[in-house]
């Protein structure tokens, strides 16, 4: 049983005929991690934003359904949709340095959501927050709760954001490149933490990344995107055993593997790009006829 399901989701720059998402379909079940992979501009972050209802003003959804627990978000009123998303979804943002308000202490930044949206009592929210900080392996949670963001390291802040994302026991979490701002050693700890928390809580996780290495460590399934189109939807073991689409193959080949220092670096060949562009053009033409 899937929790999040996208059916033919399309989006474009408002009032311009410039598609950003081309009929994207995918699903995430509870306890499953779906990787969204692609180069910059492929639309992978856009999907996460569409799900959470935080698309920039310049982007409009032009078609398709976003089903959350079987309910089509597009059919709800703005207020109901925000309410539903606020209760059931959470985001682990890309940059831990800007995601926390620098002029407020940590405690209210975690608990506000619980109090305001879920109507918890403040004391209960604080207790829950401390419990979660402990769960993301932060020593001395009580001290960290009183701290300001600038007193904490980047890795620490990302842990807090993870704790905060899991605080309200969401059904779905969108992680938008949560480790690009971090060192590799910290990245490893954070990825393992996200994976642990997700497995323990049985959350559905949509994981946006450009790094196939990370996908192989974190995800069960993945969607490879190019130009806002899903070119491959596969399970992780199957994908790394042999990607089905030529573009995915080229992307995998371009990912560096330090195990063989003499292996040459192979950019995605121009021909592969030309082919996948032709696919997109064909798709657009078909769309235009309907």
């Amino acid at each position: 049983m899937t929790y999040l399901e996208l059916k033919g989701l399309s989006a474009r720059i408002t009032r311009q005929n410039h598609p950003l998402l081309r009929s994207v379909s995918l699903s995430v079940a509870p306890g499953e991690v779906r990787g969204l992979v692609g180069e910059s501009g492929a639309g992978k972050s856009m999907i996460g934003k569409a799900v959470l209802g935080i698309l920039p003003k310049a982007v409009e959804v032009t078609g398709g359904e976003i089903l959350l627990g079987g309910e089509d978000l597009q059919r709800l009123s703005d207020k109901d949709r925000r309410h539903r998303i606020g209760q059931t979804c959470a985001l682990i943002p890309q940059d831990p340095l800007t995601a926390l308000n620098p002029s407020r202490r940590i405690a209210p930044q975690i608990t506000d959501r619980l109090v305001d949206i879920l109507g918890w009592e403040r004391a209960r929210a604080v207790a829950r927050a401390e419990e979660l900080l402990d769960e993301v392996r932060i020593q001395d949670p009580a001290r960290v709760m009183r701290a300001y963001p600038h007193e904490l390291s980047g890795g620490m802040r990302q842990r807090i954001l993870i704790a905060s994302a899991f605080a309200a026991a969401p059904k779905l979490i969108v992680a938008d490149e949560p480790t690009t701002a971090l060192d590799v050693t910290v990245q490893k700890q954070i990825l393992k933490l996200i994976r642990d928390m997700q497995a323990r809580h049985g959350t559905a996780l949509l994981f946006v990344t450009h790094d196939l290495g990370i996908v192989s460590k974190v995800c069960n399934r993945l969607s490879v995107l190019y130009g806002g189109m899903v070119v491959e939807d596969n399970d992780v073991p199957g994908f790394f055993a042999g990607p089905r689409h030529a573009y995915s193959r080229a992307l995998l080949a371009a990912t560096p593997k330090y195990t063989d220092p003499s292996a040459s670096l192979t950019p995605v060949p121009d021909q592969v790009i030309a082919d996948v562009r032709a696919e997109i053009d064909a798709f657009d033409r078909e769309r235009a006829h309907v």
Partner: protein
Amino acid sequence: MADARSLVKRRAGPRLWLSAGWIGLVVLAAVFAPLIAPQDPLAQDLFLGRMPPFWMAGAEPGYWLGTDSLGRDVLSRIIFGARIALSVALVAGGITCILGAGLGLMAGYMRGWVDTVISRFIDIWMAFPPVLFSILLIAVMGPGLISIIVAIVVIDWTRFARVIRAEAMGQGVMDYVASARVVGRGRISTMLTEILPNVLPTIVVLLTLEMGIAVIIEAILSFVNLSIPTDDPTWGGMISEGRISINQAWWVLVFPLIALFLTVLAFSQLGEGLKNRYDPVLR
């Protein structure tokens, strides 16, 4: 894939056209005032006092926007008034801009003791109450066009200096500044070629705003009779005179007010419009 910003098409838009159009009109009026003004702006004719504008009953042909209590033609006075308004806007705005932006740029880019000196100076300067300051200044220098310009510059250069300093500071930490130094560009040259083009859009917006403000200040000072001593028509002076006869002849007050309002608005919109149109980098 190219940046999505390059996809957004930019047009001049009605904002730029309308504001530039109005200012162009005012400039033409100021330059060719003696040729286009239908009447002598100073000529008094007590028999023609308080004539209404052309569409109302009792209007006198040739006096399109009516006359004031001394029988002077309102339209001609507005046209001649544009001369003073514009010269104040251009000269005061320009000097304020060069002085303030120059100091701000230096403080923001050079940092260190240059910044300390300029910033402290700005802080102290801003501690003086500006209106009092300008009245004091005019009291010392005597009323007149030059004192008004000096007053505006003296009060408003800090606005430029502070904003431009902050902008220059932000630009100063960018890698292209480091990059210019790696190739061996000197400090002044780096400031002019790397920092200045990036703060120029802000300078333009501030400058046009300042021109609007200058027009307003001139009007305010005329209104309180601290501006031009002679009978030379100024918009502020007209508003001040019109206030007295507002019940009998509203047009004496309203038309210069409209001219003033549109000009100030056009200046501020011109700045924004120019920035949107010509700045190669959309923000």
